């Protein structure tokens, strides 16, 4: 692929990506007329974040692995339990990373 075409592709993707990022931020306020949309939006954080987290715990190389042998699942469940009781990011992070490293070492 020529360098020129490559740069054209990169710029096109940059523009499109910027469009997705700026889409609703730029028109903020104009969706106020749609209360059902607003209601649905409130669920975005509580759904997107678990959707990003769960495959990282339950899937190993893109395949679901629900077993005690899945170290990330065990470490992740520990992290979830700690996060339920302590609102402390560093503690949860250290417990999760620490237990993963220990499980990988044994």
């Amino acid at each position, binding site marked *: *692929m020529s*360098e020129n*075409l*490559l*740069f*054209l*592709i*990169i*710029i096109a*993707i*940059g523009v499109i*990506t910027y469009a*997705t*990022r*700026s*889409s*609703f*931020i*730029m028109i*903020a*306020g104009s969706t106020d007329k749609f*209360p*059902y949309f607003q*209601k*649905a*939006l409130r*669920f*975005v*954080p*509580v*759904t*997107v*974040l*678990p*959707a*990003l*987290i*769960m*495959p*990282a*715990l*339950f*899937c190993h190389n*893109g395949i*679901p692995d629900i077993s005690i042998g899945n170290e990330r699942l065990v*470490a*992740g469940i520990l*992290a*979830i339990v700690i*996060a*339920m009781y302590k*609102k402390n*990011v*560093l*503690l*949860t*992070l250290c417990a*999760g*990373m620490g237990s*993963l490293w220990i499980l990988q070492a044994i």
Partner: protein
Amino acid sequence: MSSPRSEFISGVKAIAPILLGVVPFATISGVTAVETGMSEIAALGMSFIIFAGAAQLAVVQLIGDYAPAMIIILTALIINLRFAMYSASVAPHFKQLPLKWKALLSYLLTDQAYAVSVVRFNDNPVSQDKHWFFLGAASALWGTWQAGTITGIFLGTRIPESWSLDFAIPLTFTALTVPAIKGQAPVTAAIAAGMASVIFIDLPYNLNIIFAAIVGITAGLLTESRNTGGENNNE
């Protein structure tokens, strides 16, 4: 009291644990770009102009496979569609900002900046300077991403996979998310979304994330309307 400065610093601090997990991801994206035969300047341009890890990795792979330009562009679009969802979710918080701010914060919108900011905004919706929090978190992530990519491009450095540093990202998300999920409808939505994202893991282009969000939002809205007897839901 919050000030722009203190909000900015809080943002940097909030995203700091995630940065640990971003470094290996950033270096690998630089290394693979150069290994695929992209020039250093193209790899660098991609990292600054696109600034989206998952899409960048897909683009590099498709270029390596000699895919047609249109396919490469469409793939990146689909992978980055989730940003529109984040954009909609943070938009109400940025409503009052001047266009320049909106333009800058849009460029910096990522999974990680969104995650730390939205949790904070929902906790503390009255702060006048919350855009500074977002700017702090998002620009720290941007700087780390570019530094990692540059290291990968020019030094070829990889962080050993066995260190599992990437795991810091879902762990930090967990620490932020779990305390933020309160009430029956949000809990139902979260569980439905989490399960859907695993069940649909095979969907290409990270579409399982968007699909899971739709499933979760629907579950949340249904739970809510059942609990209120459907009274306020005639829109």
